[in-house]
């Protein structure tokens, strides 16, 4: 059952709401009085009061939720009603507006707690009807809107991926500030429909990550409420399960034509990705599958919709986006239009005034988000909880815009750990994960963070940070027995350590660089190893054949190349001179002794590493 928090000046109102919700839905309301507003106009007072009041209330929300639910997840999808009695425009909620006090605190809270549905009890009503309906209450509609919010929570509504654009509207105000222009805006909407909460949250997270706000739909009622009203801003992307079996279903939604008839918004969605297990066991299922195929063909040909069907299990965040080909479909670097991330770096010769680091209040918000995500990371036991944590770090990362490097690194590291954790924990995801794209993204992100490091030490700082991040991921892979991913991580780590070592020892590193590079490449995969061993054997075989077993003057007059290969194999694997060593030295001369010794050494090194590598693989698998 949803938690409800209330922050108001009036204790009598708090008491009345408590009585009402307890009697109606057995919901315990936790209430606190809003702190006294500032008197006077001293901006020194205000500068201190706003962040400290924010901290106090944030602490209250976190501890109350934890105490009431005895878990770290009590805030997820809860409701908080907060009184803002003098709000006269949305822009007053801008946390960076230093002329505002209480409304700036409320703005900070809204951004710091994306998992809460915020209801502002205020005289202000925005023009956007949808936002008004969800987020603004006044004395005239208080009970009605409160009932509506509670009903929504019961239907499984989640504000985490900003479905109605409430946080986005605050972000728009923020991005008008010179110091926060980097904050990305999500203009496009998406929807993730699945009766399995894990899939619904996972797909919604992927959409949010690539720039879409997203409605998570896990109940029939919510699907009908959300998707039967055509009078709303268009939705650009949908992730849908085909065989929907909602707990509260009143009719089957598995026939897509019927589904679209019932949910009139769906046929208008440009991009529909069906994520399904592809049931076709019974005759009825086969009939449904055939009818769906025909209908989808119609949508593609006649309505020019983009349709892709993916089969469960998937293989992670990047793979979902790649396999659905959305990466190529969206022009904006594979992301939703208008979503600019990572932010463009500030040119070195920029003449803007002030500091380039993230504004202090946004840093406080981000630290709050990271702290909660860390607690979640330590206590998770379901995929949707991990996704919740990952969403918090994503928000933190975006508010920082890479500008406060250390905290940004904390956010990025935690985000990747949580994503990997989700991928590893999720039974709906196949065993092998896409590590290549993840490492590529980490490298890209480190470059963005690196822009804010001192130029002289930038590359070393970037590499250090990347090593830290990848090491953490390797540990996560190890904990969840993702062996191939762990190996890929270790290979990446070796590569990074080598690069770091070269940068630190520029003068003489070239001497051993090639050797390290060679060993790292061998360890990257068994295939590399086999190719390398074969190449050495061939090389030694050719040399033996050319120098000691030339067909014309060979002692036994046999075919030179084969004989050379025999000697090569015997030396390499036997780690001793070939049986006809005396003939070899006689024909090839003294240097053949050195070649043989070298071949023995190479064989020793390769076989030693190969056997131990093979052993480690076999013992783990």
């Amino acid at each position, binding site marked *: 059952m949803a938690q409800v928090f209330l922050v108001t000046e009036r204790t009598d109102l708090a008491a009345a709401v408590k009585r009402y919700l307890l009697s109606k839905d057995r919901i315990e309301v936790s209430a606190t009085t809003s702190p006294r507003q500032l008197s006077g*106009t001293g901006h020194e007072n*205000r500068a201190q009061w706003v962040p400290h009041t924010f901290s106090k209330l944030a602490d209250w929300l976190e501890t109350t939720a934890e105490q009431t639910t005895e878990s770290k997840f009590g805030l997820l999808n809860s409701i908080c009603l907060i009184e803002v009695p003098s709000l006269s425009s949305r822009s007053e909620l801008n946390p960076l507006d230093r002329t505002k006090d209480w409304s700036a605190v409320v703005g900070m809270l809204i951004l710091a707690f994306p998992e809460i549905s915020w209801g502002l009890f205020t005289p*202000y009503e925005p023009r956007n009807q949808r936002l008004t309906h969800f987020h603004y209450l*006044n004395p*005239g509609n208080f*009970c009605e809107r409160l009932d509506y919010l509670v009903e929504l929570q019961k239907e499984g509504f989640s504000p985490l991926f900003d479905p109605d654009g409430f946080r986005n509207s605050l972000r728009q105000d923020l991005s008008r500030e010179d110091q926060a222009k980097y904050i990305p805006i999500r203009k496009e909407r998406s929807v993730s429909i699945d009766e399995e909460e894990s899939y619904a949250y996972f797909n919604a997270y992927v959409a949010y990550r690539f720039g879409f706000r997203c409605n998570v739909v896990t109940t029939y009622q919510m699907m009908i409420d959300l998707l039967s009203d055509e009078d709303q801003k268009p939705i650009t992307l949908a992730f849908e399960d085909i065989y929907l079996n909602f707990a509260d279903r009143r009719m089957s939604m598995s026939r897509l034509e019927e589904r679209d008839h019932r949910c009139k918004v769906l046929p208008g969605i440009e991009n529909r990705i069906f994520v399904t297990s592809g049931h076709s066991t019974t005759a009825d299922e086969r009939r449904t599958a055939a009818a769906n195929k025909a209908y989808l063909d119609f949508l593609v040909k006649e309505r020019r919709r983009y349709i892709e069907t993916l089969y469960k299990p998937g293989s992670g965040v990047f793979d979902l986006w790649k396999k659905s080909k959305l990466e190529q479909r969206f022009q904006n670097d594979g992301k939703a239009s208008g979503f600019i991330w990572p932010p463009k770096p500030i040119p070195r010769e920029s003449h803007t*005034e002030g500091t380039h680091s993230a504004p202090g209040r946004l840093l406080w918000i981000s630290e709050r988000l990271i702290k909660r995500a860390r607690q979640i990371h330590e206590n998770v036991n379901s995929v949707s909880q991990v996704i919740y944590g990952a969403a918090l770090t994503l928000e933190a990362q975006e508010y920082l815009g890479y500008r406060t490097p250390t905290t940004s690194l904390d956010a990025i590291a935690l985000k990747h750990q949580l994503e990997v954790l989700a991928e590893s924990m999720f039974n709906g995801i196949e065993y092998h994960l896409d590590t290549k794209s993840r490492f590529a993204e980490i490298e890209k992100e480190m470059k963005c963070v690196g822009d804010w490091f001192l130029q002289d030490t930038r590359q070393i700082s970037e590499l250090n940070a990347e090593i830290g991040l990848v090491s953490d991921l390797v540990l996560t892979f190890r904990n969840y027995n993702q062996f191939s991913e762990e190996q890929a991580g270790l290979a990446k780590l070796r590569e990074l350590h080598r690069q770091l070592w070269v940068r630190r020892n520029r003068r003489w590193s070239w001497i051993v660089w090639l050797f390290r590079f060679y060993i790292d490449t061998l360890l990257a995969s068994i295939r590399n190893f086999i190719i390398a061993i074969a190449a050495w054997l061939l090389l030694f075989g050719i040399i033996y054949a050319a120098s000691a077993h030339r067909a014309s003057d060979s002692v036994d007059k046999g075919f030179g190349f084969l004989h050379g290969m025999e000697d090569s194999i015997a030396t390499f694997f036997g780690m001793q001179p070939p049986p006809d060593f005396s003939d070899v030295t006689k024909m090839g001369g003294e240097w053949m002794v050195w070649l043989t010794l070298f071949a023995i050494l190479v064989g020793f090194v390769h076989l030693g590493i190969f056997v131990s590598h093979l052993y480690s693989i076999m013992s783990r698998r």
Partner: protein
Amino acid sequence: MRVAIIVTEIKSDLWDKSKGWPIAPGFHGEVKVAGIGKDQLLVLCQAESEEQSEPRAIRDSRQKTTTWLVDLSNSASYENARIYVAAHAGFVSFNELRTQITNGRFHAGAEFSHQTGFVRGLFDYLLELFDKVENDTFEAVVEYIGQRQERTYAERLKTLKHRVASIFLPVSVDLYAWHEFGFDDLHLQELRESYEMDDGRLDRARSLLYVESSAGDNVEKLVVETNLKDDESWTAIKLLLPPKSVEPVPEEVEEDEANGYKEFFSAKYVLDNLKDRDGLVALRKKLRVKNTFGAWCKELDRHLAQLVDKVNR
């Protein structure tokens, strides 16, 4: 980009201090400009008027100056800027700026008088800025304007309307809940315990409505200042919740007069009967037929909303 526009008098220290500044081309009147990084500081003199009487001259000057500011803010040079205005008191209508500057870019406006004070005021900050046009002094002025910004009459009325309605909201919530649960005894008991000591809601609302009971901002003051004293909504409000000094007693008023106060008497009856069990039992009978308190709250809110609309116009 932020633009702070300072409207001053022709014979003022501020105008003198801006003597050497470049003039922005293409505007009506003389507008001087100083750049601070990406931000800009503009200064101009309030419009002059040929009207003879002082109130008319001020009104005329105010109208012209406000139009200049709107044109200036919406011009191509500043079409994306956030606008802050500091104006000589009475010579700019912030209400109009708020509605006519495009895309909600008018951020804040504050008035100042051309006198330095014992306590540092906006004029002191402006003098400092004009002496030393740099980031810190500019930030101080912008921040000060934001803090001291004039809230429009409509905004003040809206806040008062919200506060009045909030006083009665707990009762409305409880009655709504009681109705939802079929006016059960359990809820009746809870109501009695909660409202036993409850008192003075009407007086608290009066302190937001009438000058005679108020120490701060109140609706009557705003109604007088905006010439809405004879407005029908204001008259209706006075009947719905009469001032303490003229509060009628049901037994003492004539029938015609009592009819006018019918809704007030019903609301008062509800508030008075919440305090004890017998009162609540009697109230239950009435509420089963009609939620008179809800209707009274709605009416009060509706008339206050109409006042807001009229002030907005």
